[in-house]
């Protein structure tokens, strides 16, 4: 079988190499290569989707020896958890490449970093070897650091530094956990670790705590979320889209793949604590978002809220022995990752487009924009409604399943539903402040979305509706895997 996963993972690097080879030929060439490469990668991931996954295991395995003496190998594969995330990743990078076409500050370097980041992101989701996973996981930090430091806003150096130090501190405990699992099993093959627990007792609990720390920073979950607002606010628009849409999913993906699957007994013991953190994150993120007047920061905090629901879903799945309920919780959590990628991706793009025009993100600077820029306005309103969980849009089927399982397993935790009310309030307030009310004459000449921007935003809006109306197109694949966990 042709190694499509490897092709998808490393095609961006090939694109990056050709951009470097043609350096100095101007920005449009670099952006052209970037759009072509990411588009091609997206098509390849669609072909991977067409090949399908096998229920109850990994499929499309690609394997080459790497360091045989310690059982590390180049191993890729997909299942119903990783494939949707791979699709999301390739889509968001494709749209980001289109959006970036206007970047004229050192475009070649920018494109190279973005393509490196795509390889790292796809590799993180596709890796079936823990050492390889860690390699991709960390490479993403390096690319994102340079992206924020090089193309971010006013206070970018500090934000980039904090992002890199914080998340490196966050990810190193995972390396310890991986080494612990390796010493317990003699291999880095994640399939072996998933099939049977390699650690037990205290060792398993220590490994779990290390993993939870890593993934909590990445998700980010209260109280280790503090890097996120700084990084988001200073990052360039595409940086924010990738950070929120793709890189936060490393955390929740790891939570299921590593913590839940590899140390199941310890996870069950700790699940109640994890649930408390999830509920608190959901509420905290909503309240913190409510307090923001900066649109981008507000969207950033709603990520803390939405990712909190994912944590809740995984935690309640660890608390029940009923396989059906567990599958519902995990289905909801996984779908929530996809929904969040689509919706938050759209919101960050839209805030970025607004900022490109107005050079400000403060809500109070705007007003009555809906009449001036109807496309932008309605796109934002639709995305905001999706973000607050309106039925028929992407978040609803995901959050519904999470809450359904929670209600059955730990009814008190449905307290987090309060966060949805707050989210509704804050989005309505933002819509009112920016798009409704008296028009501000300052923006009388603001242009509406151009063709390039529509190409970016319309596919996301269509998918937000599609996932909301027909979540079955993803849930079938997700459920086949989750029901077997």
């Amino acid at each position, binding site marked *: 079988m042709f190694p499509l996963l490897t092709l998808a993972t490393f095609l961006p690097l090939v694109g990056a190499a050709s951009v470097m080879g043609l350096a100095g030929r101007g920005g449009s060439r670099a952006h052209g290569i970037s759009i072509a490469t990411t588009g091609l990668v997206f098509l390849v991931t669609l072909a991977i989707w067409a090949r399908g996954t096998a229920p109850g295991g990994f499929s499309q395995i690609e394997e080459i020896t790497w360091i045989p*003496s310690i059982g590390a190998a180049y191993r890729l594969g997909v299942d119903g958890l990783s494939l949707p995330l791979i699709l999301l990743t390739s889509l968001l990078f494709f749209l980001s490449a289109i959006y970036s076409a206007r970047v004229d500050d050192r475009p070649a370097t920018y494109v190279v970093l973005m393509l490196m980041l795509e390889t790292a992101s796809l590799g993180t989701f596709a890796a079936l070897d823990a*050492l390889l996973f860690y390699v991709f996981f*960390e490479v993403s930090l390096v690319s994102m650091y340079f992206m924020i*430091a090089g193309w971010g806003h006013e206070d970018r150096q500090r934000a980039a530094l904090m992002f*890199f130090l914080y998340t*490196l501190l966050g990810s190193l405990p995972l390396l*310890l956990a991986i*080494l612990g699992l390796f010493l317990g099993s003699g291999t880095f093959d994640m399939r072996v670790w998933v099939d049977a627990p390699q650690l037990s007792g205290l060792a398993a609990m220590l490994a779990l705590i290390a993993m939870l720390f890593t993934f909590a920073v990445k998700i980010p979950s209260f109280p280790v979320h503090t890097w996120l607002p700084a990084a988001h606010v200073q990052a360039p628009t595409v940086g924010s889209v990738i950070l929120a849409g793709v890189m936060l999913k490393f955390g929740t993906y790891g939570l299921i793949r590593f913590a839940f699957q590899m140390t199941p007994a310890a996870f069950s013991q700790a699940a109640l604590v994890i649930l408390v953190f999830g509920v608190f994150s959901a509420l905290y993120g909503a309240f913190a978002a409510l307090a923001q007047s900066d649109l981008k920061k507000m969207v950033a905090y709603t990520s803390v809220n939405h990712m909190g629901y994912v944590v809740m879903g995984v935690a309640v799945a660890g608390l029940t022995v009923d396989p059906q309920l567990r599958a519902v919780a995990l289905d909801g959590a996984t779908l929530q990752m996809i929904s969040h990628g689509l919706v938050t991706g759209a919101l960050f793009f839209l805030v970025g487009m607004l900022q490109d025009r107005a050079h400000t993100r403060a809500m109070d600077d705007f007003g009555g924009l809906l009449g001036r820029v109807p496309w932008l306005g309605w796109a934002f309103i639709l995305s905001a409604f999706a973000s607050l969980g309106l039925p028929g849009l992407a978040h609803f089927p995901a959050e519904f399943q999470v809450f359904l399982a929670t209600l059955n397993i730990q009814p008190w935790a449905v307290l987090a539903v309060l966060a949805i009310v707050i989210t509704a309030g804050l989005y309505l307030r933002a819509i009112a402040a920016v798009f409704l009310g008296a028009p501000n004459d300052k923006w009388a000449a603001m242009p509406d979305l151009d063709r390039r921007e529509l190409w970016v935003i319309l596919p996301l809006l269509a998918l937000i509706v599609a996932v909301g109306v027909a979540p079955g197109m993803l849930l079938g694949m997700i459920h086949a895997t989750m029901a077997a966990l």
Partner: protein
Amino acid sequence: MGMARDLSFLLPEMTLGITAFIMLVAEMLRRPRLALLIGLAGLALATALTFPVLNAGTTVFGGTYRIDMLSGWAKLILLPGTALALLLARAEIAGRDREGSVYALIALVTLGALMLSGSGDVMLMVLGVVLTGLGSFALVAWPRDDAATEAAMKYLVFGSVTGAVMIYGLSFWYGGTGSTLYSALSGIGDQPLIAMAGLIAVIVGLGYKAALFPFHFWAPDAYEGAPVSIAAYLSVITKLAALFAFAQAFRDLPTSTGWPLVIALIAAATMSYGYLAALVQTRMVRLIAYSSIAQSGYFLLGLLAIGGGTLALPSLIVFGAAYVAMNLGAFAVIMVAGRELEDFRGFGRAAPITGVAMVIFLLSLTGIPPLFGFVGKVYLFGAAISAGYLWLAIIAILNSVLALAVYLRIIVAMYQPRPDAAAAPGQAGPLIAAVLGITVLITLVMGLFAGLLPG
């Protein structure tokens, strides 16, 4: 017969010794370039001659010298590393007075380094310490200016004192076992005081050479006083040799003497002190000097696992190879950019390719995958955890974050706008460019081909 057999295993060492001698003759004839070429050829030949004995797993001269995996890989790392250092030295001091003596001294010090990494006997270890020490003092003092003389004096005095302590302490081991062989140490467990006296001696003597806390004081001064290329050489070759000598000595020392805990404590102190001190440096050579001190601490994670666990020796070898490449590379960039942190401001924009090379070296020193330094650190952490030192692995990880802070200071400066007053940075000449190319390639690619290394 026995003599001929023993000598046949020593062909790399003998080749290097003869090479050093011929280099001295070339220097006497005032032909420094010839001395350099002889040196490079001799190193290449010695490297090639290492392959037949790489997996011999034997000892020669009655067990005093070990031809084993560690000493074999030590040659494969130290000999090419020395060749790179020779190229750097040529780039820095070409045409200056007494140029060839530097090359000959470097070859001699490397001979001492090989003896250290193969020593199976305390006498041979002392001999290695003395040979590397004498050559190194002369190398540091070579420029004959005030800074170099002061640095060499500090180095010499420090070396003499620690050397004396070492020899005195080692006499206890001889008294306790009746033999100078390391292999006799396996029975020393029931004489804890004697074991401890010799242990302290080894730690003082070799710890000084490896620049472990608290025997590191000479290192930043010596590196700063010496030519940059000599600092680069000392920071990798003599340091690695000392760490390999540690490994040879501790292989036979029973863990019941408590040495792994002592090493673990020194490791924690060395890593933390090295990076904390590096964080406040404003001169690049000193910054990298302190960073090299911290890196020594990481090596100790592998060293303390020598008593148990299969990852110990591979971890020393893999991280050793990575360390030689990335540290030599970082020093090579300093030779191009300048000795002050301020010289690096905007350097990445002014010299993009050399700048990217520096970023790769620094990220590899931090341990960011998939670079070679990361693979080495995975081995080291694995070795420490398998030996039961999880707490030390956690300290090492916290220090990796500190390391990133240290190295990001350089990276951030490199991509700031260049001060208007600053002159354009120097260009990397062909020799430095060659060294940079080789070290970048190793740092980048060997992480992917780590399967070629022992394990």
